[in-house]
């Protein structure tokens, strides 16, 4: 089939769309003079069945091995004519199209100029066709299983959907429990339903689902391979508690010598825990974990006479000799649902977070209003860091409730000075929700003020909720505070009411900073593992902002939840369901087609400089060592399952050693020559 080219040229009239302007007869006559052209014809509609039959008949009768169709845009009918070639017994990549409609007859009304251009375009197609090569249309098998990284609400939802569809799911979570940030919340806006009530059943479901293998307190260490065949290595960190024996009774935690002395991450440090702990009562799995940095026995080698937790555990679950376990498995697809960090309010020093006890982040406040939180749901004035001074036996003074609470919105969002230009999308509404909860829990006489830049109440039920909160007496002041300072036992918020251009010194008991959502500080780990790209806001980059919002540039890897950009719970769930269904497409079909017009390396001439490796947006190229006449040399090699066929490598290669199939230098340069001639 790769012998001397025998080219058939087919010029389409497209009714009068082409023939009305371009003299198709003249183009056909011209085509007959071109090298290796054995037949040139014109026909009213090449894409019609009889039109296609012209091609298949000529392939059969005249032994054509290359076909040029001069008609509409290849973006329109290239797939059609590729199939024609295939049905005629030719490799579909022996087709070249000349666009003489969209880019010729429709845009040039002068018949002479249009015909002249059509001839040039046909010639360029013919000279390229002479150099075309047969390409393999390859498929790879897809392992019917999915790795989901992160078990917040997005990861949980995606896991449940995929598992319910009958595919195996490996759900890997870094912390000791699933649930993520949603588990920390009290109520959810705008409906005020209880976060735990809607989340915990799902948490239990992922733990019990027969198709889900849940790995908490675990981290993905290595990912290799490509869509359909990813090789995964996960480290399950030792909890020093035997998961099979632990009953979750909590006797150990009560006895821990460190109990109440370590800030509990789950409570944003407002509550305390011991070295052996359950992050929160509904944690899944309900198994205790020993934090080895803080455990006296594990960090110092000595815990009194002997570790009290071990004595307290009647199940005999505590085992200080337990080691990390590394497990390896294969999956076909991967969903990244790693979530976010909240903005570090210390980066806005003018607000005094970390200096004044009663300047809180919204998430700290969220824990405080949560009935199962460290204060049992009471909003109280905080005296941070004073607990240790309390003498034993001394009765704790009943904590005072604030008489006024002030919220500041957009802390770390829409703020170029901290590098975050974007809107975090949830703060306006959670602020309204928390304001409502203050009124609810502290009492309607508690004065609630919100400083805002704009209120973005764009979602379903948002505007109504915002109205409701204002009706409850929450005061909104448009202005971005410049400073918070202390005066007596009050905090003073200095701001300007920008609607009335009035400078304010607003006195309050407590300030809550509505911190934004940020890319996780450990994002780099996943980027390095999966070669993901980031958008300018440093969240993970989707493959297309409009049409492929859950895909990444790498096939088989999908995004769910806030790791792709700030979103609220329903949006995160929607995206998780989207990512789940996207991941299920290749798993359900069992195989995926891979791009045929990929790059290929001439290993004899490649000098192994790695320019292509460095620039490939899909990490499809690697340097491998080969033996060249006895010498070990490095050359580039393309993983065809990863290559998307952009050809950027081919343009960067100094020795011309890497070429893109169907767009090789020796295929494009004759085109340049044909079009360069006047």
């Amino acid at each position, binding site marked *: 089939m790769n012998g001397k080219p025998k080219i058939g040229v087919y010029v389409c009239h497209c009714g009068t769309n082409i023939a009305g302007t371009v003299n198709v007869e003249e183009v056909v006559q011209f085509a007959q003079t071109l090298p290796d052209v054995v037949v040139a014809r014109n026909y009213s509609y090449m894409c019609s069945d009889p039109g296609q039959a012209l091609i298949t008949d000529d392939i059969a009768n005249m032994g054509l091995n290359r076909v040029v169709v001069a008609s509409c845009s290849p973006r329109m009918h290239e797939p059609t004519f590729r199939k024609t070639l295939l049905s005629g017994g030719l490799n579909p990549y022996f087709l070249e199209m000349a666009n003489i409609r969209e880019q010729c007859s429709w845009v040039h009304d002068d018949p002479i100029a249009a015909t002249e251009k059509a001839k040039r375009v046909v010639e360029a197609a013919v000279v390229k066709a002479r150099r075309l090569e047969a390409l393999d249309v390859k498929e790879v098998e897809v392992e019917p299983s999915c790795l989901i990284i992160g078990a917040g609400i997005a990861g949980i939802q995606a896991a449940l959907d995929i598992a319910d569809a009958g595919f195996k799911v490996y759900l890997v979570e870094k912390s000791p429990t699933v649930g993520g940030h949603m588990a920390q919340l009290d109520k959810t806006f705008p409906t005020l339903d209880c976060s735990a009530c809607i989340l915990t059943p799902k948490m239990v479901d992922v733990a019990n689902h027969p198709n889900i293998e849940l790995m908490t307190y675990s981290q993905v260490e290595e990912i290799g391979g490509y869509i359909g065949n990813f090789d995964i290595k996960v480290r399950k960190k030792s909890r020093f508690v035997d998961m099979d024996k632990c009953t979750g009774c909590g006797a150990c935690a009560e006895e821990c010598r460190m109990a109440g002395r370590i800030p509990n991450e789950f409570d944003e440090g407002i509550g305390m825990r011991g070295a052996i702990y359950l992050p929160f009562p509904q944690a899944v799995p309900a198994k205790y974990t020993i934090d080895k940095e803080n455990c006296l026995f594990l960090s110092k080698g000595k815990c009194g006479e002997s570790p009290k937790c071990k004595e307290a555990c009647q199940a005999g679950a505590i085992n200080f000799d337990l080691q990390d376990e590394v497990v390896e498995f294969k999956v076909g697809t991967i969903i990244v649902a790693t979530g976010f960090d909240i903005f570090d309010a210390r980066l806005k020093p003018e607000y005094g977070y970390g200096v004044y006890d009663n300047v809180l982040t919204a998430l700290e406040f969220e824990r405080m209003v949560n009935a199962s939180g460290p204060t049992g749901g009471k909003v109280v004035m905080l005296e941070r860091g004073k607990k240790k001074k309390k003498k034993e036996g001394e009765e704790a003074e009943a904590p005072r409730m604030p008489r006024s609470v002030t919220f500041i919105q957009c802390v770390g969002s829409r703020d170029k000075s901290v590098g975050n230009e974007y809107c975090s999308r949830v703060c306006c509404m959670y602020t309204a929700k928390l304001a409502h909860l203050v009124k609810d829990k502290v009492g309607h006489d508690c004065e609630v003020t919100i400083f805002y830049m704009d209120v973005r109440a764009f979602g379903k039920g948002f505007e109504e909720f915002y109205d409701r909160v204002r009706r409850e007496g929450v005061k909104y002041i448009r202005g971005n505070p410049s400073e918070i300072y202390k005066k007596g036992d009050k905090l003073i918020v200095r701001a300007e009411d920008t609607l009335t251009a009035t400078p304010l010194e607003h006195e309050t008991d407590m300030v809550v900073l509505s911190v934004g959502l940020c890319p996780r500080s450990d994002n780099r780990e996943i980027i390095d593992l999966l070669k993901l790209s980031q958008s*300018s806001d440093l969240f993970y980059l989707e493959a297309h902002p409009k049409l492929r919002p859950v895909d990444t540039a790498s096939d088989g890897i999908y995004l769910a939840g806030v790791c792709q950009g700030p979103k609220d719970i329903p949006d995160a769930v929607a995206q998780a369901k989207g990512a789940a269904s996207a991941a299920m497409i290749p798993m359900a079909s069992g195989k995926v087609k891979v791009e045929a017009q990929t790059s290929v390396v001439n290993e*004899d*001439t*490649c*000098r*192994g*400089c*790695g*320019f*292509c490796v*460095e*620039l490939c947006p899909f990490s499809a190229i690697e*340097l491998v060592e080969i033996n*060249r*006449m*006895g*010498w*070990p040399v*490095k050359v580039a090699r393309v993983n065809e399952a990863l290559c998307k066929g952009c050809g950027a490598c081919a343009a*960067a290669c*100094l*020795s*011309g050693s890497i070429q893109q199939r169907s767009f090789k*230098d*020796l295929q494009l*340069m004759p085109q340049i020559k044909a079009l360069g001639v006047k």
Partner: protein
Amino acid sequence: MVDVNKLREKAKEVVSRDDVRMLIGYRPGTYGFRARPAFVQGPDEVDELIFTPACVNNLASYIVLEEKLPVPRGEEPDLRKVAVMVKGCDSRALVQQMEEKAYDRERILVLGIPCTGVVDMAKVEARFPNVLERGEIALEGDKFVLSTGGGKEEVAKEELLADKCLRCRYPTPLVYDELLDAEVARFADDDYSDIVELEKRAGAEKWAYWEEKFSRCIRCYSCRNVCPMCYCEDCVLERLNPQWMRRSVDVSENTAYHISRAYHLAGRCIQCGECQRVCPVDIPLMELNRKFYKDVEELYDYEPGTNAENPPLLSTFKVDDREDFIL
């Protein structure tokens, strides 16, 4: 100026090592003031080594250009280190070669020579024509002292200094295992004044300027062959299929050759000036290379051959790269 005895002693120590295959250095040329590369295989050969202002060659080229003959069946390739003497500019070629993964750092052993400048042999020969007996050049203070059997002459340093040295930013090697002398501080820089002057001329005038230069080209490929960055197994500019340019020597093909050569060095040329030095028809090749060098520095804040960890210039981008030229 590096002490020649110290140099030879160090060379002896290096070539005596089991893990070193050879040392590339300099020795006196056959006539006149010239020096030439020396490929020292054993300790008995070190006495011919020198370093003087006549040591103009960039020895980094030889590391990548050395032909790898087929290894006979049953034998192992000789993968021992190559030791090389480098000036500041030459060392940048090593850095760039390593950035381009030509070899790993442990494959070379670098003897760094902080350089106070080398001569332009053309300037020397213009001033002292037809010197056949061996002569020597040394730098004493701000004067070059040229001595032959016939006597001794002093010339002001800047009169004979190579143009590249008049623009040198890195006289002290950027990579070395051992530095053979005290560091030399930067004594020059490139202000690109000649490039800027040429940029300002009218299009037709510029074309005429270069057409005259390129029309002289005999396509000997010396500029490519000597270049420490041009070491493809199979140079794309000489390939027949596809043929980027014909081999025929005419101004169109020559121009294409020079565009391609210079573009292939964009973001890679380390300004050693070897191409221009070896050009038999005096094409000012550095005026091409320096144009790219200047643009690369101004547009992308990138200086080739200064950090082997840098990503290659054209394999990377910044989202806010200039695009005011784009419609």
